[in-house]
């Protein structure tokens, strides 16, 4: 990686006439960039801003639910809050954060100079802020924002929706275009850009999980596009896909939506598996246990995700055969997921463990995600699901999986690679504060929700019966505490970007992988001449 190698690159055509290894300055650098690290940073910052935005909405929800009675907002606005909170956290926070990690790390991990299609990469990113601008602008429209839940079940989202459905639909469309292009880029980078000698089974597990995730995205985001298109025509053009009067079926919406939606759930968790499969070996100073079984388990989960969608729909009146089929398939998912958890535990077993912040988040991930997995197994049992369905038990379940699962893994990844990104070590005390505050508050926030659900509190209600009051109070306190804890992270990252103790090329003694062979911060261009893998 000499300067010669960089200068050997042919001069770019073009409108700006600049040499490509010079960063442009100011806004243009970010608008016109084709650099995977710049784009990765933009994805990560964007997702954090969206995380805070969606978080504020969650706090509005928790403030309203602090006490019984409608205290602060109207029920319709409450529904807008739950809907947009869900959409933003899924499509605006978790997914872009993973894409950001992929952008930053994949080329470095496979020894490539950049993503395979750098311009397309920048397009994928820049669509997102515009898509969310459209979605959020509906708050300022006369009709208000979407209020039909992030799952937008017809006919609440069609015949009975407010006037902003068209904007919601087109925002999702361009968001989907962004995701599909991003995923194609990831797939092509991994298939085509690996350094010589890096066979598929030598790829870091992180790369594997993103590879499989990207396939899921390519397969199901177009289905989401089809779904919202049918919602659009049902709402505005008189079609009756989801209307029995014309021969359609509202339940058909749910089938098509969840055919997208269930793989989507794994899109949000498989990369998390990849991250902790990187961090746990690093801080256990021991190779990942059962690498190949981890790969096969990830692939099986991805495959199963296509044939379990209707477990979200057990109460819709499916035929008995369907209920049984989807119950069995769903229960099967516990097998590969279990293998993963066992492998992580076995990786730690007789390792030499230390508890740096990435490791703390990873251990919390394994335990809390597994709790989310347990409640998932309970939800898979059709007869019992009749009791759990659409209660706070479900809310507890998917927040354990997505917050203490996906989000904690993202924090683990961020703390793991932050020195590589900024070139500085972050403030360790602050990071520990962030971890312990988050850990305690997140459990205060989500654990009591299990009991609320079992006691019979439905989800998506702005007010509740008196027996639920005590628990809701504590949940709300946990919510505010968790929200405030995230500001510690913001301060920490800003401080770390500005300066601090210089980070060595490899700050973690147990870390493995090509990304630690380059200096910290990683140079603007890495691996223009690929490394050789043995």
């Amino acid at each position, binding site marked *: 990686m000499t300067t010669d190698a960089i200068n050997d690159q042919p001069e770019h055509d073009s409108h*700006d006439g600049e040499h490509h290894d010079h960063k442009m300055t100011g806004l243009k650098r970010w608008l016109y960039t084709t650099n995977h690290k710049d784009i990765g940073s933009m994805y990560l910052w964007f997702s954090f801003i969206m995380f805070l935005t969606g978080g504020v909405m969650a706090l509005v929800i928790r403030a309203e639910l602090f006490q019984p009675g409608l205290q602060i907002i109207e029920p319709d606005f409450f529904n807008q809050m739950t809907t947009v909170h869900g959409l933003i956290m899924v499509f605006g926070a978790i997914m872009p954060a993973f894409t950001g990690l992929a952008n930053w790390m994949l080329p470095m991990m496979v020894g490539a100079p950049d993503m395979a299609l750098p311009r397309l990469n920048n397009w994928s990113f820049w669509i997102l802020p515009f898509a969310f601008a459209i979605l959020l602008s509906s708050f300022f429209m006369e009709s208000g924002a979407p209020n039909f839940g992030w799952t937008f079940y017809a006919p609440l989202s069609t015949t009975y929706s407010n006037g902003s459905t068209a904007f919601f639909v087109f925002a999702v469309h361009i968001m989907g275009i962004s995701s599909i292009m991003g995923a194609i880029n990831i797939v092509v980078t991994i*298939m085509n850009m690996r350094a010589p000698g890096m066979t598929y089974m030598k790829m870091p597990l992180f790369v594997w999980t993103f590879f499989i995730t990207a396939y899921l995205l390519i397969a199901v985001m177009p289905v989401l596009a089809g779904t919202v298109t049918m919602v659009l025509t049902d709402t505005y053009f008189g079609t009756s896909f989801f209307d029995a009067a014309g*021969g359609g079926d509202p339940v058909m919406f749910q089938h*098509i939506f969840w055919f997208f939606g269930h793989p989507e759930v794994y899109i949000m968790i498989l990369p998390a598996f990849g991250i902790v499969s990187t961090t746990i070996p690093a801080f256990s100073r021991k190779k990942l246990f059962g690498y190949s079984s981890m790969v096969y388990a990830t692939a099986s989960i991805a495959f199963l995700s296509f044939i379990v969608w209707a477990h979200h729909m057990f109460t819709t009146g499916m035929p008995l055969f369907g209920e049984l089929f989807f119950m069995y398939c769903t229960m099967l998912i516990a097998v590969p997921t279990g293998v993963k958890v066992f492998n992580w535990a076995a990786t730690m077993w007789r390792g030499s463990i230390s508890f740096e912040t990435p490791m703390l988040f990873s251990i919390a991930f394994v335990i809390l995600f597994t709790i989310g997995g347990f409640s998932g197994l309970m939800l898979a049992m059709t007869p019992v699901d009749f009791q759990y369905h659409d209660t706070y038990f479900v809310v507890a379940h998917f927040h354990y999986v997505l917050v203490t699962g996906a989000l904690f893994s993202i924090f683990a990844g961020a703390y793991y690679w932050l020195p590589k990104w900024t070139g500085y070590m972050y403030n360790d005390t602050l990071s520990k504060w962030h971890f312990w505050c988050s850990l305690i508050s997140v459990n205060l926030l989500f654990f009591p929700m299990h009991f609320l659900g079992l006691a019979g509190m439905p989800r998506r209600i702005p007010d509740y019966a008196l027996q639920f009051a005590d628990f809701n109070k504590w949940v709300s306190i946990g919510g505010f505490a968790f929200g405030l804890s995230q500001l510690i992270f913001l301060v920490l990252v800003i401080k770390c970007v500005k300066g601090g103790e210089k980070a060595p090329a490899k700050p973690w003694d147990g870390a493995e992988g090509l990304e630690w062979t380059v200096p910290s911060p990683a140079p603007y261009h890495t691996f*223009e001449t690929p490394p050789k893998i043995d």
Partner: protein
Amino acid sequence: MTTKEYESYYVPAQSKWPIIGAIALFLIAVGAGNYVANLNDPESVGGGWILLAGIALIIYMMFGWFNNVITESMSGKYSHQMDNSFRQGMSWFIFSEVMFFAAFFGALLYARTFSVPWLDGAGNNAATAAILWPDFTATWPLIKTPDGTETTAMGWYGLPLINTILLLTSSITAHFAHVALEQEKRGLLKFWLGLTVVLGITFLYCQGLEYAHGYADEMKLYLDSGIYGNTFYMLTGFHGMHVTLGTIMLLVMFIRVLKGHFTPKNHFAFQAASWYWHFVDVVWVILFVFVYIV
């Protein structure tokens, strides 16, 4: 390929086209959203113009972006590996298009096998038919909906059959054009490629005729004529849009051929357009079977 010696991989410097593309998509989404949300408000015209501006901008972006890529390619900056990236990217893009159609085929098959028979009491839905839709009889094509809207089914002979023959032929001619290109027979290449474009345009014209028949008073087959009309127009409509896109791609390739572009070894764009054409052809065959015949 990973075991091979690594070629230099071209990473373009900054490019303005992605952000222009993002703004274009933004305008399209805002414009389309405004246009659709105010369909019933004749005084609202803003949405349509924003939409057109977005489409114009994205066409401008495509010209600029592809122009960059063509220039880079022609000046020999691209490696074999880059060519692979493009090919794989295009194949996965086509796969994503397949999944988009899968959603609508899914809706069609769901309506045919589940919702329509259920409304007539099939499966565990005896009560549905008895209590809610006592007068409804399940048929496919669904020419009378549960709420009594009547329509006529589009037969498979006549225009649809002609269209099938047109598209199948065009797929073959596209293949001949490809063979001619690889054998460096430029005259034949122009002929076969030109013929493919003409067949594509003829297909679109016939499709238009068919729609005119459907919307005429004898048939009363409208987009909102119940699930049969919905699936018929949405599937053939989205297919028609893809044929239009494919025809434009082939047309651009034809112009580039006239300008002397492409070599037997280096013709990714041509191949991408040709793949895309085969893809719309395959979709049509499935569509012809499930929408028209069965």
